[in-house]
């Protein structure tokens, strides 16, 4: 199946006005997003996530390299008919929510009764059905983000690109959006999700890419990335806690973390002590731990690389 989104050695440099300096936002960035997955796109502020998204949407042109979205070169207006996009810090025209969603739907070629019905449908899906006639001028940031999401999905896109879609949402709204994304994926659609809310990403994403200073530093399935290749947790019963150093006891069970290479010896120690192994699990990191590990560089926080 052809890739939904594909970056091939993409570089992006910005010139700093009135200087000879250039900011390198993306460096040799290559990535392939497959159909039907929720793809998490992570990175600290200034890592180049929004730049990568804006390149795909055609808001910018790459300095070098190329990319394709739904089989077409980046920036093709007709392709965008099949794409939904929600920008970070969403900004919308001041008009009633349903009229606004209809406007954006119409720009994608939708019309008539179908558009009117669909606009109300998506507003209901994001939990704003009751506010459809209210002008978005009076909406909170969270509500605006939900209207933004409604305009992004009004055309039932094949690919949904979301840049920080849940940053301003309360927990209830976050659950609504999460369920909506999962339902979207279950219908065979693809979601490219850039977010700082790592717990959200961990919950919904099939694959994750981590970007740091314009470079892709890790890519893989969420479960494989969170699994540690180095440690295993052994849970045993019927042994004294002193059998192992650094063991913990919980509900009468002894928990111990051992290096993968020493796993066999540790199990034999349990048996020799007259105990029984209850379970053996690879130690899982949280996405937050992984994120901090991958992005913990001295230059971090100073955004993209600056070159003379």
């Amino acid at each position, binding site marked *: 199946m052809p890739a939904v989104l594909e970056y091939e050695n993409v570089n992006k440099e910005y010139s700093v006005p009135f200087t000879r300096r250039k900011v390198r936002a993306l460096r040799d960035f290559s990535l392939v997003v497959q159909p039907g997955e929720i793809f998490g796109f992570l990175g600290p502020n200034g890592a180049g996530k*929004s730049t990568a998204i804006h390149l795909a949407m055609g808001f*910018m042109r790459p300095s070098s390299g190329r990319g394709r979205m739904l089989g077409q070169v980046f920036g093709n207006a007709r392709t965008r008919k099949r794409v939904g996009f929600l920008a970070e810090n969403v*900004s919308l025209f001041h008009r009633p929510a349903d009229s606004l969603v209809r406007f954006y739907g119409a*720009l994608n070629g939708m019309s008539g009764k179908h558009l009117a019905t669909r606009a109300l449908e998506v507003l209901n899906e994001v939990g704003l059905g009751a506010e459809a006639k209210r002008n978005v001028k009076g909406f909170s940031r969270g509500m605006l983000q939900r209207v933004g999401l409604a*305009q992004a999905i009004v055309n039932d896109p094949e690919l949904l690109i979301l840049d920080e879609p849940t940053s301003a949402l309360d927990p209830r709204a976050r659950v609504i959006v999460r369920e909506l994304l999962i339902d979207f994926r279950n219908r065979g659609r693809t979601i490219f999700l850039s977010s700082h809310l790592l717990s959200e990403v961990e919950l919904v994403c099939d694959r994750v890419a981590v970007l740091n200073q314009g470079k892709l530093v890790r890519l893989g399935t969420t479960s494989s990335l969170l699994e540690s290749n180095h440690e295993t947790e052994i849970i045993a019963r019927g042994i004294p806690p002193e059998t192992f150093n650094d063991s913990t006891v919980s509900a009468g069970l002894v928990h111990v973390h051992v290096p993968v290479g020493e796993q066999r010896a540790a199990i034999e120690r349990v048996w020799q002590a007259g105990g029984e192994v209850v379970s053996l699990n690879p130690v899982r990191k949280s996405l937050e731990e992984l994120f901090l590990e991958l992005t913990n560089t001295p230059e971090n926080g100073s955004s993209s690389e600056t070159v003379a």
Partner: protein
Amino acid sequence: MRNVGLIAVSFVREQRWPIFVLLLWVVGLCVIGLTVDVRRSREDVLIIFKQLVVYGVAFAIFFGGSAIHNDRRSRRILAVLSKAVGRKQYLCGLLTGIALALFLYCFCMGFTGSWVLGQSGFSIPLLWYLMICFMAACLLSAAVAVLFSTFLSPLFATLASGLFLGIPALITLQFGGKWAYAVPVYPLLGPLLNASFHQQLRLEWPLLFLAALEMVGLWLIASWIFRRRDIAVSVE
């Protein structure tokens, strides 16, 4: 075409207050004009009418010079261009929106002008022909401003448009020749700015045709430049 219309109507909707104030200004002056003895102070009324023409051109340049910047600064451009809207279509939509706003202004001026000036003996057919020339001059000025605004900030786009439109006219005024016809805003406005109660109607359709042709050319050049611009970077 539908997207162009949607963007145009959206532009007018967003600019409804400045447009409303402009129209109110014209109607207000018309009411004042009707309260005085129009026949005795008809030259004064004509001078005020000519002033309104200059305001119209100035607003066309301001609208054209700031339209893209306003959408970029508010980041609303991202939601619009994330749809099936090409850059060429987007610019065409903005220009059509400016044309709609200017049409309202020109129509209002033509309507009130034929009422007030008509009472004092100004030729009504001449007035409406001059309004068509005025509309064409405003649109051409707006197209120039939009072109400059694709790569300059609104302030510099406005200044550059002023220079681009003004210099050929100044050269013609000073040294003669046909330089003003390079961008025929001044030749289009000339008959209106020099209008008198004794003027005869003299149609200059080739000038209007040239203006229309240049507008299309400017739009194409602006689209070519705008397609190569990054729109998502900070505009501050």
